[in-house]
C-alpha cells in the first residue's frame, strides 16, 4: 500500500468534468493552493475539468485558489457559507452575471452535512436556520417541543485538502487552524487527494496523534514549500497599495 505519488499532475488526473469537488480550507488557512493551481493549469491546457461544483466555506478571494478556478471558468456551482471576502470579485461578478450557481449553507450545517456524508447519515435535524429563508422548502419536525430543520448529507466525487504530515498509508495531521473542514471532507469524498508538507514513514505519526486515519485518504503528494493563500493575498494587496506597509 503506497498512496504517495511524486507527480501533482498524476494526483489530480482523475478529476473529471461535472464532478463535485470539496476543497479544504477556511479562507486561506488550509487552502490546497498547489493542487488547485494544477487543476487550473490542466483546465487552461485541456478544457477539463470544467462545470465543477465546488464545496468550501468561502467562494474565493483575490485571484488565486478558488478565485482562480472561477476566473478560469471551471466552476458551475458553489456550495458555501460565506461567499464574501476582502476581495471576492471573481465570485461576485460571475454570480451577478448568472454564470455561477450558489447554494448558501450555514457554516455549522455545512460542516455537519459533510460529516454526515462521510458517516453514512443521509439526513439529520438541526435547530440552525429554523424559521429563516435558508430553511424554506426543507422538512421541519418537532422534538421535545422544539422545531428543527431536516438537512441532507453532502458527498463529493473528490476532496482536495492540505495536510501537515502524511505517511504512505494515508494517515494525516494538519497545521493549527488549517485543519478546519479537511478531516470531514476526507471522509465524505469518494476520492481524497492530499498535498502534505512532509511525508513520513508509517509510525512517524504517533497513533494517538493521527487526525485523519488513512482509510479516508487515497492519494498524497508532498509539497514541502506550499504557498499560504492568505499570506499571498496580503503581499498582493501591499503591492497594489504601492508597497506601503
Amino acid at each position, binding site marked *: 500500500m503506497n498512496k504517495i505519488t511524486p507527480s501533482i499532475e498524476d494526483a489530480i488526473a482523475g478529476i473529471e468534468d461535472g464532478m463535485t469537488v470539496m476543497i479544504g480550507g477556511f479562507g486561506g488557512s488550509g487552502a490546497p493552493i498547489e493542487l488547485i493551481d494544477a487543476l487550473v493549469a490542466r483546465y487552461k491546457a485541456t478544457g477539463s475539468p470544467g462545470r465543477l461544483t465546488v464545496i468550501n466555506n468561502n467562494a474565493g478571494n483575490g485571484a488565486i485558489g478558488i478565485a482562480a478556478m472561477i476566473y478560469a471558468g471551471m466552476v458551475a456551482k458553489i456550495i458555501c*457559507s*460565506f461567499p464574501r471576502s476582502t476581495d471576492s470579485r471573481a465570485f461576485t461578478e460571475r*454570480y451577478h452575471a448568472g454564470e455561477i450557481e450558489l447554494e448558501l449553507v450555514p457554516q455549522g*450545517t455545512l460542516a455537519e452535512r459533510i460529516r454526515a456524508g462521510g458517516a453514512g447519515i443521509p439526513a439529520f435535524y438541526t435547530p440552525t436556520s429554523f*424559521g*429563516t429563508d435558508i430553511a424554506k422548502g426543507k422538512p421541519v419536525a418537532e422534538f421535545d417541543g422544539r422545531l428543527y430543520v431536516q438537512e441532507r448529507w453532502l458527498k463529493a466525487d473528490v476532496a482536495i485538502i492540505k495536510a501537515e504530515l502524511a505517511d504512505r498509508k494515508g494517515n494525516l495531521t494538519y497545521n493549527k487552524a488549517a485543519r478546519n*473542514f479537511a*478531516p470531514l471532507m476526507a471522509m465524505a469524498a469518494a476520492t481524497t487527494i492530499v498535498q502534505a508538507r512532509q511525508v513520513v514513514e508509517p509510525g512517524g505519526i504517533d497513533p494517538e496523534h493521527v487526525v485523519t486515519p488513512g482509510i479516508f485518504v487515497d492519494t498524497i503528494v508532498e509539497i514541502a514549500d506550499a504557498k499560504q*493563500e492568505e499570506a499571498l493575498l496580503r503581499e498582493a494587496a501591499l503591492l497594489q497599495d504601492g508597497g506601503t506597509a
Partner: protein
Amino acid sequence: MKAKLTNAQIAWRAAQDIPDGAYVNLGIGFPEMVAKFKPKGREVIYHTENGVLDFGEAPPAGEEDWDLINAGKKAVTLNAGASFFNHADSFAMVRGGHLDVAILGAYEVAENGDLANWSTGPKSVPAVGGAMDLVHGAKRVCVITDHVTKDGKPKLVERCSLPLTGVGCVTTVYTSLAVVEIIDKRFVLREKLPSISMEELQAVTGAKLVVEGACKDLNVPEV
C-alpha cells in the same frame, strides 16, 4: 439625540457581564472588541468557529501565522491550554449548547427574540457564515448594537422586517442607550443612560419597553 455610548463603551458594558470561566464566542467585527474589556482577574475562554478554543490576542504585525486565524480571518495567538479541532466538532460545541455566551451584531432585534443580522435584502450576495448556528449555540445570546440605524430608525422592533438569522434566540441587548433583556417575548429594560428620559428612549425604540423591578443607570467609563 443626546449623548450615547461609543461602540467601545457598548463593548465594555457587555464585557462586564461575562463571568469568570465562561466559554465565549465573539462574532466577526464589532463583537470582537468585547475581548479588550474583559475585567481583570477573570479568565475567559474564547471559541472560534474555525476550530480553535482558548486563543489569545492578535500577534504583533509581521509575526502573523496565517494558519492560526479566527473566524474573522484575523491572525490570533494561543493561550496555554488551547486546542484545535475540526469544523464539525467546533459546531458541536456551538449547536450542542456548550458555549456560555455568544455576542453578535444586529440589523434588527425583535421583542420576541428574533434576530436579523445576516442579510439586508436580496440585492447583495448573500453570506450567512456561522451566525445561524451561533444564535442557537449559547446559554446567553447577546446583541451589541447602536440603539438606532444610521438614519435614526429603531433597531429594537416589534417584528423584524429583514431576513431572520434566528427565531426567538436573543436573550440580552446592549445598545448605545440601554441594556434590555428579552423575557417572555417582551423588551425588559434593565439599564438606561441617566441622561436620557424614559420617554426619549421609548421614542427611539420600535416596541414597548417594559420596566420590571429596578431600571438602573447605565454608567460606563470613558474607554
